[in-house]
């Protein structure tokens, strides 16, 4: 698989490197920008990043696999992030995730993020989304949803076209 970075993105990334005293310090922001553009970070993208930042591919790989926020595979069009930290767990977020999984035909016993076959939805657990008072909390892409009941969940799914 060939990996090409559009000119504007590369210019943006080159500029980003200049913000840091050392090239490698730009790694995180660099990877965020790549993920934003491509949706995930492929091995080719990691190698390209390593070259740009004068690192070895393994250094980038360690970083990408350390943070769950970095994706190594293409995810669904709608990414459903269910908070599982204490308040939300008490507020029923586990049952809520089960509900999402059931609705979308996914296996709720699996730990890792799961994507529907049509590539439309990805469901996963995340840690505290910083709205503990309105548990359970869900993010769908960049939108925040509080006090999500099963019924509200169905509504939300319905709005995803």
């Amino acid at each position: 698989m060939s990996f090409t970075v559009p000119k504007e993105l590369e210019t943006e990334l080159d500029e980003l490197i200049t913000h840091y005293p050392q090239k490698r310090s730009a790694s995180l922001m660099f990877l965020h920008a790549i993920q934003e553009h491509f949706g995930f970070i492929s091995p080719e993208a990691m190698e390209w990043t390593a070259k740009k930042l004068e690192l070895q591919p393994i250094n980038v790989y360690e970083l990408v696999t350390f943070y769950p926020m970095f994706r190594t595979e293409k995810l669904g069009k709608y990414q459903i992030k269910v908070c599982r930290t204490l308040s939300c767990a008490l507020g029923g977020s586990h049952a809520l995730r089960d509900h999402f999984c059931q609705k979308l035909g996914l296996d709720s016993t699996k730990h890792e993020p799961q994507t529907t076959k049509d590539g439309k939805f990805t469901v996963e657990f995340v840690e505290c989304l910083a709205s503990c008072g309105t548990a359970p909390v869900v993010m769908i892409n960049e939108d925040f949803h509080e006090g999500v009941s099963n019924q509200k969940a169905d509504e939300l799914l319905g709005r995803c076209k």
Partner: protein
Amino acid sequence: MSTTETKPAPPPVEKIKIKVDGREIEVPKMTPDWQGKMQPTTMLQACALANQDVPHYCYHPKLPIAGNCRMCLVEFGTPMIGPDRQPVKNEDGTPKIAKSVLPYEPSTPRGAIACATPISPGMEIYPSSPATKQMREAVLESLLINHPLDCPICDQAGECKLQEYSVDYGKATSRFVEEKEHKPKQVDLGPRIMLDDERCILCSRCVRFSKDIAGDDALGFASRGSRNFLTNFPGKKFDNNYTLNTVDICPVGALTSKDFRFQMRVWFLKESKSVCTSCATGCNIVIGSRENKVYRYEPRENDAVNSSWMCDAGRLNYKWINSEFRLTQIKGPKTEWSLALRDIAETLRKAPLGSVAMVASARQTNEELYLLKKLATKLNALTDSVPRTGEGDKLLVNADKNPNSNGAKLIGIAPAQMGSNLPKIAEGIHSGSIKTLIVFGEDVTKCGISADLLGKLSTLIVSDILPNKTTEAAHYVLPGCAHAEKRGSFVNTKGRVQRFMQNTQPKGNARAEWEFLHELVYDVTGQNGFVSIEGLFNQMAKEVPAFQGVTWAALGDLGVTINL
């Protein structure tokens, strides 16, 4: 003395006093680190000086310190300082020691990692205290949580630090009732390395070795927490000249050599100190064999030569020793050693001066070359060795693939320009002035003396280990020994004279070359020499100027450097 072993007295070392397990000891304030730079002495190094080995996994004296395994935790204390900034004294006048404790729980000792904590004057270290023991037990228990405990089929078993420390600090039963974390197994890391991630304790020794010693930043840890695992970059093979060293330094059985994997339980191996013969560096090695079959080479530490490492090619170049094609019998009119040697001696004695030439490999030992030189002098023979060059690298591998080029030159078998006499020998055979050729350890048909030329000789005497075109053409073939089967010495590229010990027995009727050469030299020249390798070496050292002052005993395990 022509050795460089006599050095000016080192400058005095600054020492500080500390206590280890209550015993006072003076230790140097500074100690060389993995690169030889002086750094403050660590608690682990100080304890070693006090004969207290602190258990450790990630620490390796030849690698940068990582401090990540926590196995080396020790309880310690430092002299208490009062509000007046003066040392606080006990009633008996001794300094009061403030033990390191948890700030929020002063009854609980707070250990420090001995591998990375510098000592300070008056410090007290308690490597044998109950608190230290508890810390070790806790670290070990946590390391074993996800460990597969597959010692019965693990290649490391018998030389595994996890096993050893478990014997010392482990629990007989596991308190862990949860499901163990499963990680990648049988990971094909590179052409020579197989990884079992479940056995890995994440000490990062292999990561640091690859990056900082081999200069190939190829290994790292993916994921995090209990799912953390060692890996290469997907699809990028772990393949440099030194990968197998990671198998040696891996304290557990995570990294295994594909070559040695499942071949032999390590406790059956008979080990002896030897030297690698695959290039002029002469890395120090340990040969491991069982029932006369060699199973592995491992590097042996020698800071004057190879530190603690060796190259992969050298390490794996041992299979020829076990070859089924080894020469095991004398080939010639007489097939019994004493008769054959006498027969050869008679032929040589009758040969007109100057009609004999000799090609002796720079893979033969000093002792053998010295005896051959005696023969050559007596017969006024033109001699040479065969240059053997390949690729070198920046760390250890030398472009000269002969282990004893310097020996061959110093002893006078090879001219300064090794190989420059070979065309003259070929020419001599061609013109008929050379009628007898003695070849030790080379296939001369590969270096300008064709099989046709060999056919013109009236006598061709060859000693070798494996058959080749030259042994095929020989009138006499005397089966010799691999270095593993005899004792001897080489001079490496820097002038290090290094001896090696015998590990296995000669194959069949084969004999160590120096043994039968000694007899042959006696039969031809009438000069008696020494029948032991020690005596032979010492005699050579007296006669060959470059070796003046060196003795077999002085070579020890690590050798002696002579001026080239």
